[in-house]
């Protein structure tokens, strides 16, 4: 359809505006989705990397990050005695607010036993805590607050020496830090307290079977780790998915409107030319194809540019604000191209109506 191409390329500013509009919209859609994917990945990252496949929590607690759990005192010992259980890692965890350079910073404290697991899974620097006044801090949060290895930070009124910096433990909302379980008990003034047990089934024992065996422990409930992660995911999705998806929808709408408006204006301006074509004998279907092809070319070029911009913007955002994880997956890029196609088709509707409404006899009117 050389007419569509020529019409489009004749007005270079308009074409640039149209492609730019779609590119920005697609970039926004991709970055927002990438942010959502990154957020979900961050939310489940502790459970994804912690030992075991079953989590024992206080009865009624189905997620890790949205609720406080406190297990009865003898649960650790009793869980270890159940058949089919190879290992039990108790942790004492709590959301707390740190005061870092006068700024309030929420963080998720994990008290763990280094010999059983449940601590940081990747250290960028340093080592795990060996004393009750040592802490492994999230490296991104540490960098943002200029906390260095060997430095001191105050947690709930007590000074801790930073002996390690962990990786993959950050999120835009909260980051993890790790101390010994005894130190956490001391901070929370709850000796012997445990929030969750991370249970590793014995070889040959399925997670489901282990969960069922562990279900009888009094005052507790056993949940598959994958279910617990899914519950955390759902909890955050409930709060963040809707607004982010709304923003994605708005971005789509804005992109569609930009292409639609540009193609509509171009079509209205060339209304007489379309009338001439109709008078000469072009059918409406031919003219619809011209209009749709213009929208399609602009939208596809915009979508491809938008994918490139999204990758660049993602990198830039993560460099400037490392707490944000933007995950752009190839499937998402393919989806963006489909979104571009959707924009083109939606954007072609109004101009197509203009073309349909042109009376061929009008070309003889002066």
């Amino acid at each position, binding site marked *: 359809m*050389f*007419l569509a191409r*020529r*019409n489009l*390329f*004749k007005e270079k500013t308009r074409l640039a505006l149209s492609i730019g509009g779609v590119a920005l919209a697609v970039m926004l859609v991709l970055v927002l989705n990438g942010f959502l994917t990154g957020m979900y990945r961050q939310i489940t990252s502790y459970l994804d990397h912690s030992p075991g496949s079953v989590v024992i929590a206080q009865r009624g607690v189905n997620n890790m990050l949205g609720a406080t759990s406190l297990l009865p005192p003898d649960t650790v010992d009793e869980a270890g005695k159940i058949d089919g259980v190879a290992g039990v890692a108790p942790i004492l965890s709590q959301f707390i607010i740190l005061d870092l350079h006068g700024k309030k910073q929420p963080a998720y404290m994990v008290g763990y036993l280094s010999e059983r697991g449940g601590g940081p899974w990747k250290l960028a620097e340093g080592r795990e805590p060996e004393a009750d006044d040592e802490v492994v801090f999230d490296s991104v949060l540490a960098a943002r607050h200029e906390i260095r290895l060997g430095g001191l930070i105050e947690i709930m009124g007590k000074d801790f020496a930073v002996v390690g910096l962990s990786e993959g433990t950050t999120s835009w909302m909260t980051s993890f830090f790790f101390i010994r379980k005894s130190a956490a008990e001391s901070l929370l003034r709850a000796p012997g307290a445990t929030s969750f047990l991370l249970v590793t089934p014995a070889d040959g024992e399925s997670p489901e079977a282990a969960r069922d065996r562990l279900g009888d422990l009094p005052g507790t409930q056993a949940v598959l780790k994958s279910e617990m992660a899914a519950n955390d995911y759902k909890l955050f999705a409930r709060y963040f998915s809707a607004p982010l998806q709304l923003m994605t929808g708005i971005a789509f709408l804005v992109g569609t409107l930009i292409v639609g408006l540009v193609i509509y204006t171009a079509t209205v301006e*060339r209304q*007489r*030319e379309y009338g*001439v*074509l*109709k*008078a*000469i*004998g*072009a*059918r409406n279907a*031919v003219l619809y194809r011209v209009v749709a092809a213009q929208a399609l070319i602009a939208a596809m070029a915009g979508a491809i540019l938008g994918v490139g911009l999204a990758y660049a913007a993602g990198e830039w955002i993560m460099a400037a604000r490392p707490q944000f994880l933007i995950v752009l997956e190839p499937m998402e890029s393919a989806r963006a191209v489909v979104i571009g196609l959707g924009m083109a088709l939606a954007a072609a509707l109004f101009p197509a109506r203009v073309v349909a409404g042109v009376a*061929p*006899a009008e*070309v*003889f*009117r*002066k």
Partner: protein
Amino acid sequence: MNNEAMNNGKIQNPNDQTCGERSRTIPKGNTATLVVEQVTKRYGAGATEVTAVRDVTMTVAPGEVVLIMGPSGSGKTTLLSMLGALLKPTEGAIQLNGDVISALAENRLPDIRLKQFGFIFQDFNLLSALSALENVALVAQLAGAKGREARKRASDLLTDLGLRERLNFLPEKLSGGEKQRVAIARALVNDPAIILADEPTANLDSKIGHEIMRLLRRIAKEQNRSVVIVSHDQRIKDIADRVLWLEDGQFKEMVTMAIDPVCGMSVEREKAAAALEVGGTTYYFCSKGCRAEFEGEQLKGR
């Protein structure tokens, strides 16, 4: 004799004195007779009803050039639109080679317009984003020609019309006369039986306007296509075979043009200074002198 170049289906490039040898052969036109029978067109209804064309009857024969003149608002454009299957009459019928095109379903009309009619507009109405070649080739493609074939046909036509050096020019780079020649090429590319021209000289100076009209006449005569022209321009009367005066939607006066066989001038038959019937043919003269000369020639011939 009229100064038309009679070269067997070739159009002489008006700017090229040697084009008789260089021009390509354009196939002889597809021919048709257009018959308009008691056609009326009304707009609106009740108190707002307006009759734009009232009970018009006419026939356009193959190879005939008909000029429709009349004041603004007389219904010329409405009549032209109906002739070109762009508008349907409220009453009456329009036939093309016996087929009543005014009764055809709306979805059949684009094909009729594309293949049977060539349109020429006052404002040229070329597509601004396309080159001269593409403007013409596009219309061939709409009628089903493949890209290469369409471009070849367009290129041949434009070359024959003296635009070989302008094939890739956008309309904005062409003069008025060149634009109208592109429009003529576009009108001819699908080999139509009838060419409908709306004020084809309105945006041209008189020299170029006359050149364009002579070109249209040549196309009619050499290719046996019917040409219907709507115009205000009195200066182009001499190229028409018939001049029809439309007023208040009706033909008021019909003038049939003839060529003086002695001096070659166009004369209105009804106002000719003299006429003479020889062997069943009536000849019309601009002056008695021409008639006398003609009679002398006739006597010598005997």
